[in-house]
């Protein structure tokens, strides 16, 4: 007796589109059960989690909350857009968190090491250095994969911890603010090194969100309309057909990693130059990992990713709101995000496969379809 997944001959187009919504609905149900088990009223909990942060939509006094949503969504969207290209080319960059930190640290170099260098050119340079830092850090797993055939999932993931520890050492050691009362963290950036806010009158949302939207539209155009996007999809679906077309899969590994590294690095420097305004040891709340969920919830489509990024940003805000108002642990945020990914993948699997309960022994068949009879 065992469970067997068998491929459906045809998958429903309708359910392919509904899948992310279905996954969200199932996550809400699972969340309600989770809160009930924690002894909270599921209705109240879900209200604080998913509705309360959105009250700014109709209540001008709470408009600042929408800005907070954009602040959280910006890095998620930027990173996930890059990852979508990576994943579609069949390169599994799991280390965006590390590239985010590398970009943040590289971009912080100017205001921290040369604080007296103050000019309008500082911010553009910081952004470029952030992009370069993310790219350089993403190049490591790419080189390892192309040159030594290592598994990029493992190398990129392990490099996250290297980046975290390196950043930790930076802000506690050489870059620590001497006036910081021994707290880890650099000096506060000078005004030329701060990423401006979009509408300072109504809230803190910064230009990172605009960069995220531009990146999403640009990558969407590249993937759906240009030869480069075609190349990404061909190599992702069939390396052999890609080679037949004349595309190089080694070069694609670099393209995919460098692009996703660049966007993660940009997200990193926008985060420290935007809302945080200095580099410290906990600049990321797991954006690089959450962005993986965003990429899949958005079905690897950059426009879908914008929507998915807002949804996942909501779980961060909701987590804070629920922590304050009903006193659940902030770990619930992680549980929620994991549940979403679980249901997204489960829905996708069930769209393509059906589950059968099989009893009895295994039979082999279908091998002869292969010619070498």
């Amino acid at each position, binding site marked *: 007796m065992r469970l067997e997944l068998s491929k459906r001959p045809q998958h429903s187009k309708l359910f392919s589109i509904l899948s992310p919504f279905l996954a969200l609905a199932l996550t809400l149900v699972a969340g309600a059960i989770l809160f009930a088990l924690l002894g909270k009223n599921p209705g109240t909990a879900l209200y604080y989690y998913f509705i309360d942060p959105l009250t700014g939509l109709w209540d001008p006094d709470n408009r600042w909350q929408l800005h907070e949503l954009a602040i959280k969504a910006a890095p998620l969207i930027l990173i996930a857009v890059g990852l979508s290209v990576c994943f579609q080319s069949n390169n599994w960059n799991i280390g965006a968190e590390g590239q985010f930190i590398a970009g943040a640290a590289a971009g912080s170099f100017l205001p921290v090491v040369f604080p007296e260098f103050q000019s309008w050119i500082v911010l553009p340079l910081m952004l470029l250095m952030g992009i370069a830092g993310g790219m350089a850090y993403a190049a490591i797993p790419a080189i390892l994969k192309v040159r030594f055939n290592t598994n990029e999932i493992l190398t990129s993931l392990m490099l996250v911890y290297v980046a975290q520890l390196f950043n930790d050492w930076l802000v506690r050691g050489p870059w620590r603010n001497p006036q910081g009362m021994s707290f880890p963290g650099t000096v506060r950036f000078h005004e030329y090194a701060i990423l401006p806010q979009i509408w300072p009158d109504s809230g803190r949302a910064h230009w990172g969100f605009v960069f995220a939207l531009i990146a999403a539209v640009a990558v969407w155009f590249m993937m759906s*309309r*240009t*030869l*480069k996007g*075609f190349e990404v*999809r*061909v190599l992702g*679906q*069939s390396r*052999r*057909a890609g*080679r*037949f*077309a*004349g595309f190089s899969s080694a070069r694609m590994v670099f393209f995919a990693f460098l692009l996703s590294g660049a966007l993660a690095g940009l997200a990193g420097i926008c985060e420290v130059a935007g809302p945080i305004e200095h580099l410290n040891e906990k600049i990321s709340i797991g954006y690089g990992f959450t962005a993986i969920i965003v990429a899949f919830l958005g079905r690897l489509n950059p426009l879908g990713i914008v929507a998915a990024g807002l949804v996942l940003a909501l779980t961060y805000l909701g987590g804070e709101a629920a922590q304050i108002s009903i006193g659940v642990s902030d770990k619930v945020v992680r549980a929620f995000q994991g549940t979403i990914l679980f249901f997204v993948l489960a829905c996708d699997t069930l769209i393509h496969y059906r589950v059968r309960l099989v009893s009895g*022994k*295994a*039979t*082999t*068949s279908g*091998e*002869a*379809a292969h*010619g*070498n*009879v």
Partner: protein
Amino acid sequence: MAGGVVDDRRSIPHEGLLEVRGLTKVFGSLRACDHIDLTIAKGEIHALLGENGAGKSTLVKMLFGSLEPASGEIRWKGQPVRIGSPGEARRLGIGMVFQHFSLFDALTAAENIALSLDRETPIGAIATRARELSAAYGLPLDPFALVGDLSVGERQRIEIIRCLLQEPELIILDEPTSVLTPQEADRLFETLERLRGEGKSILYISHRLEEVKRLCDCATVLRHGKVVASCDPRKETAASLARMMVGNEVMAVVRDVAADTGKGEVLLQIEGLSRKPAGPFSVPLRDISLSVHAGEVIGIAGVAGNGQGEFFEAVSGEVQQDRPEVVRIRGRAAGRLGISARRLLGAAFVPEERLGHGAVPAMRLSENLLLSRFRTDAKAFLAAIGVIQSSAVTTAARRVVADMDVRKSAENPEAAALSGGNLQKFIIGRELDRKPAVMVVNQPTWGVDAGAAARIRQALIDLARAGSAVLVISQDLDELFEISDAIAVMHNGKLSAPIPRAEATYERIGLLMGGAEPGHAVREPA
């Protein structure tokens, strides 16, 4: 049974170890095995001969329990048995050494052997036993060597020792010498003879006629899923065995003899092409030279896995050569050029695999058209910064569909939604639409229905008649005889000189396919 075949099947042999009666296996409409009778006596080496697709592997899979027969009977030592799984086959005393090994590179020889044993046996004991066996059967092997460091021949020894540890009475060897050097093969033959001396039986699958003649006591020949002959190979010639294998049915097709207008210029020239094996199971190419003239179709025959795939990759530019002058396309040295640059010189390529090589399964036909033509037709298909002109691509795809009569269910379906024959028509049509000066096709009608196959062959002949050079690699001899002006044979990475159509016979080609030296490919009295 197809005409004029030697048939001196021995009626009741002495003491059959394994007897098979009327064994049949059907896949869809294909009768892979059709009422096979086979008797293997104790202490004999029994050859199973046949071309690719003759049903050898299917038969063996049924004997080893990995496929279930549709009908028929298997008797083991006189008792009818049902072999439901490889485990049951092993318990009966049937062991198998596969053509492609299943070994872990990172483990030692002894550890790999331990993995296949049911019981908990300490590695040390296995190593000792493996050493004894390797000494007894002349299979030198260090049980503690890492598999990754071993040669193919040594890896095969692990498989054989693994098989011998189960103390089988019947050992099935699937194309054991296809991956071995001649010296390694000689060593293997000594081992097999020693096993026969101990009364073990061996079922030896091969298409190499000389080694079957040298080694085997008895041979069963399969063709199109049927037993066409059983004989004593030592009393046959390589030529007569080849004839049994490929058949000698009369050809019904008459081809126009327009090729006597004198040869055109050489459009595709290959000179001294050699290639090291890319992996443990790929065949090295050895000093291949060939010229294809304008207006000419050259066929390359050969049993699958003799280097055709490697040759195609080298000619197409998917794998580049060391020196530019090894491959010349329309006179230009192209050996250091990639596939796109070779296409720009006027060449077109159609690989063997349709899905996943010639086409991306989940992409639409128009996108698959772009796959091989985005560079050659860049002016029509691409605008600034690489933006795809989808209307131009779709129009071209529609033209290909109409020209080649591709039947499909939707306007622009995914490649995987087409039947094999229709997708192949599209892939061939995609290249013909460019009117290439050089066309290289690997297995143009493999697994394609008769109607589509005829259409494809006609298109290739028409292309050559219009002044292009066409090179067709195929396992289907009938096809090659139908369309080629000359046929060369690929065997073990070497290519024979092309034999003009008028001088080529099935027997002569079959002999070369079986590995006879091109030098003494003499015509034999029937």
